[in-house]
């Protein structure tokens, strides 16, 4: 399918070329590659002058005024004035590199070149602009052209294309490479600078002059608030479960949530468990300030209040977040009002079996720096809990699960448990629900 472009700005000198079917512009190229017209590059005046300079430096006569403003495209480059007859293309040894150039095959032969650019088929250059721009130099083997080239905006000296067979490279690849090479080179000429003094300084206030200080300040505040991610409330019931086990069945809750913005949050946690028909065995709440300190981790500090057993309040510091391999981890150290130091590490990992069926291994380890007999805690490793829960996410927010959870009391803690008539090793078969909102 050919695009018909009619009456295209007659002032464009090469309008006749543009108006012709795409295939005609690309004689010698695959018609299926319209983007090849890229090779028909027109160039800006400055570029042209640079090129002219280079050619003068190379000993090629280039007429002054060869680069006219782009507004006069036909005159922009009087090709007949640009005599390349002394250009020794023979010095470019890898002649097969020329097969990638836009020149017709006969022009690509070195002996066909020494006339002038008139000798080349510039039919694919709609602007009649400097041929240097149109001739994609990066496709030529400039390896032999030495450092004289290196000072130009395109650092040919550093480009060793001698290993490339452009004749066989698909045109698309060639194009991609060539142009990025050119960009890279020219960037070096543009300094990385802060804005000049004329750019002004301070807050953006242009609209204030038109709409008034008060209205704009209010709107700006609203915009800042609106694009800040906002404050939000999150509540998660991570584990709310029924625990079937030897003896009396039990229950467990493990909830957490926050209110806050991206960096600072108020975080709360509560855990508790017990057996049906008995008083709650253990329950606690934590109130924490949580601060994002790394992409995947929050630092947390606050207090923990035990709701069962002897009166205890703890100071808490901890880290919560996501470790490499997607482990969700929560590590906290506690110092109680009695001076007891304990710590807890929790880790869980979501393994997606399908998009909605998720297997979650979970482990929790409790440590203590000292014996705490009234709490049944022994120094060292106190307790280990390992669980496996399989949940189905009916919605992301609502996922019932079944699983198994094994608890061990370790060392002195196990002794305390036995002394209290409890089994230091308990297997729970659990059914529960995980939800958040």
């Amino acid at each position: 399918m050919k695009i018909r472009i009619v009456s295209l700005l007659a002032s464009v000198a090469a309008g006749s070329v543009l108006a012709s079917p795409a295939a005609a512009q690309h004689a010698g190229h695959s018609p299926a590659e319209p983007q090849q017209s890229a090779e028909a590059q027109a160039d800006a005046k400055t570029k042209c002058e640079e090129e002219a300079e280079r050619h003068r430096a190379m000993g090629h006569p280039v007429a002054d005024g060869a680069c006219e403003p782009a507004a006069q495209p036909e005159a922009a480059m009087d090709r007949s004035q640009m005599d390349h007859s002394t250009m020794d293309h023979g010095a470019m040894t890898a002649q097969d590199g020329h097969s990638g150039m836009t020149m017709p095959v006969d022009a690509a032969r070195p002996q066909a070149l020494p006339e002038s650019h008139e000798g080349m088929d510039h039919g694919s250059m709609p602007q009649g602009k400097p041929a240097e721009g149109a001739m994609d130099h990066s496709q030529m083997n400039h390896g032999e052209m030495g450092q004289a080239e290196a000072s130009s905006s395109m650092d040919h000296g550093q480009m060793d294309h001698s290993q490339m067979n452009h004749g066989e490279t698909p045109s698309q690849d060639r194009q991609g490479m060539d142009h990025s090479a050119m960009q890279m080179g020219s960037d070096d000429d543009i300094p990385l600078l802060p804005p000049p003094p004329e750019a002004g300084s301070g807050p953006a206030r242009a609209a204030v002059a038109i709409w008034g200080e008060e209205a704009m300040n209010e709107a700006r505040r609203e915009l800042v608030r609106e694009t800040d991610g906002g404050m939000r409330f999150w509540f998660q019931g991570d584990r709310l479960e029924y625990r079937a086990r030897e003896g009396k069945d039990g229950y467990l809750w493990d909830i957490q949530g926050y209110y806050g913005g991206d960096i600072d949050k108020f975080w709360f946690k509560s855990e508790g468990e017990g057996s049906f028909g008995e008083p709650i065995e253990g329950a606690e709440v934590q109130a924490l300030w949580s601060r994002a300190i790394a992409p995947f981790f929050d630092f947390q500090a606050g207090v923990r209040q035990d709701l069962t057993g002897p009166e205890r309040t703890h100071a808490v510091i901890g880290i919560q977040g996501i470790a490499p391999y997607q482990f969700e981890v929560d590590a906290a150290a506690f110092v109680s009002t009695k001076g007891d130091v304990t710590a807890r590490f929790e880790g869980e990992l979501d393994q997606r079996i399908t998009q909605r069926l998720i297997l979650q291994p979970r482990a929790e380890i409790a440590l203590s720096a000292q014996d705490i007999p009234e709490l049944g805690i022994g120094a060292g490793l106190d307790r280990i809990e390992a669980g496996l829960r399989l949940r189905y996410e009916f919605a992301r927010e609502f996922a019932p699960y079944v699983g198994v959870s094994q608890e061990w009391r370790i060392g002195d803690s196990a002794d305390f448990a036995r002394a209290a008539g409890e089994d230091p090793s308990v297997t729970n078969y659990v059914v529960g629900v995980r939800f958040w909102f």
Partner: protein
Amino acid sequence: MIAVNRRKFLGAGAGGMGLLGLAGAMPAWARGADILAGNARKGLDEISGPNIDLTVARSAFATGNRRGGAIAVNGTIPGPLLRLQEGTTVRLNVHNQLEEDTSIHWHGLLVPFQLDGVPGVSFPGVKPGETFTAEFPVRQSGTYWWHSHSGLQEQAGHYGAIVVDPAGPDPVQADREYIVVLSEFSEMSPHTIFDKLKKGEGYFNYNQNTWTDDYPLSGEDRRMWAKMRMMPTDILDVSSAAYTYLLNGHGPLDNLEYLFRPGERVRLRFINAGAMTFFNIRIPGLPMTIVQADGQNVEPVEVDEFQIGVAETYDVVVTPGAQQAYTLAAESMDRSGMGIATLASATGARAAIPPLRDPPLLTMADMGMSGMDHGSSGDAGMSGMDHGSGGDMAGMDHGSSGQSEMAGMAGMSGMQMRDTSLLPPDVKVGPGLDMVSMNPVDRMGDPGIGLADVPHRTLDYRKLRALTPHREGRTPSRRMEIHLTGNMERYMWSFDGKKFSAVSDEPIRFAYNERVRVKLVNDTMMAHPIHLHGHFFELVNGAPADRQPLKHTVILQPGGSAQFDLTADEPGDWAFHCHLLYHMHAGMFQIVTVANPDGSEA
């Protein structure tokens, strides 16, 4: 060439589409008047003339099995097509019937900054019950669009098309033309969508890698991604789990038809008015010739498929004829769903609907490790390789990081996903930055996520050339670099590691008429459509300086970079932001200030 009144065709076509959509196509259960009552009509009406009224109001919308609250302008979604004429002056009256502030940004139109419609930057916003009038000369032609710049209203239906007819002859001649406004509809309120994005990572992604998926990922690959705490399937934040994809407000079941006579040249003006969705556009059996990008004419490029980023526009010309009907498929980039329309030679004619293709995966190039991607054969990876053999560029020796070290994607040893020493000093390193691209190569030659290995012709930015040379030929006087930063897990997005709230008093400043080369570096694994208001910049895509394509929005491919040359010749304060609505909402926003010609501060 047959002389055709475009407007007549468009009007008739659009009207027909609307009726069809309501009467014929809705599933039986959806035909009840109770459900449709109060619903916004599916666009697309056309308004022209020197004085145009736009009334923004609460509404409801239904398509397929989804229905919910919406915002409609003049009672339709999309709102009306504004047909303007270059060289005339237009008066646009925005009436706000919402109970909250609203605004309309004329996306791509060159207007005085105070009429640009961004609350907090260009004006205070339009209060409930009030009317805002923007009167300005229309000094360009092409395909553009308008949308709310207040809160998340755009997602709810507050958008529409703009076509400006040129003062002179149009270099693109067509027998008829149609508008294709791409967008999404969700039953969830936009604020709920944002809340879910903030709280649940991958909330809308039901194409995640699992134990039972078919993805071509080795165990090693999977462990590598898990180690990085990233997802290779993180292509779009919001999927068809929440969205029904719309063409001119029509869902896939709404039977949108574009009628043609065989052999006619049909111009399709594609506008991606989606909030979050990049689309892959195909018309199987029909090549498309790209003739315009972001409202600016380009040299014709024939493709079989192209990806359109959020806020971009592309005009294409097609010549249907061989078949009775063709399916226009607008597949979401994550391939979770598609919008459908039919190019039909007779009402009711249909063609096969192409099936959804397998969802794509992110590559090494998307991780900012171009040139190391020997595992997959994407275009992007190849360009990295080309650089390697092309020599020592920008001081990077790609050659030495080649095959020997990188047998596949999984050879992660020694690679740092967050080497902050690679960042310029003005990038703030904090929790809001979860990754730094190791080797952010220029990815202008990339057709977009998932299109690198399709077996047909695609579009990329390197194939765009301005149709006519532009006057600006100066070499930029300086360069600047802006990093796109984010944290997927926390859903924080920013420029240079700083949300707008951190830099709201420190705009990006340009002197009047200053020409600057801006390099954008994407230190995230998402594609971001970056939009600068009030200007067209030129993509530095290898074209000669005066043929660099003019655009108002540029897609930054994941882990890559892109450059544009900007002539800052529109004084005032302008918004500069990621056009993914929820990225902007999360902080990826800045103000660009261009000083006045007399040197005074704008």
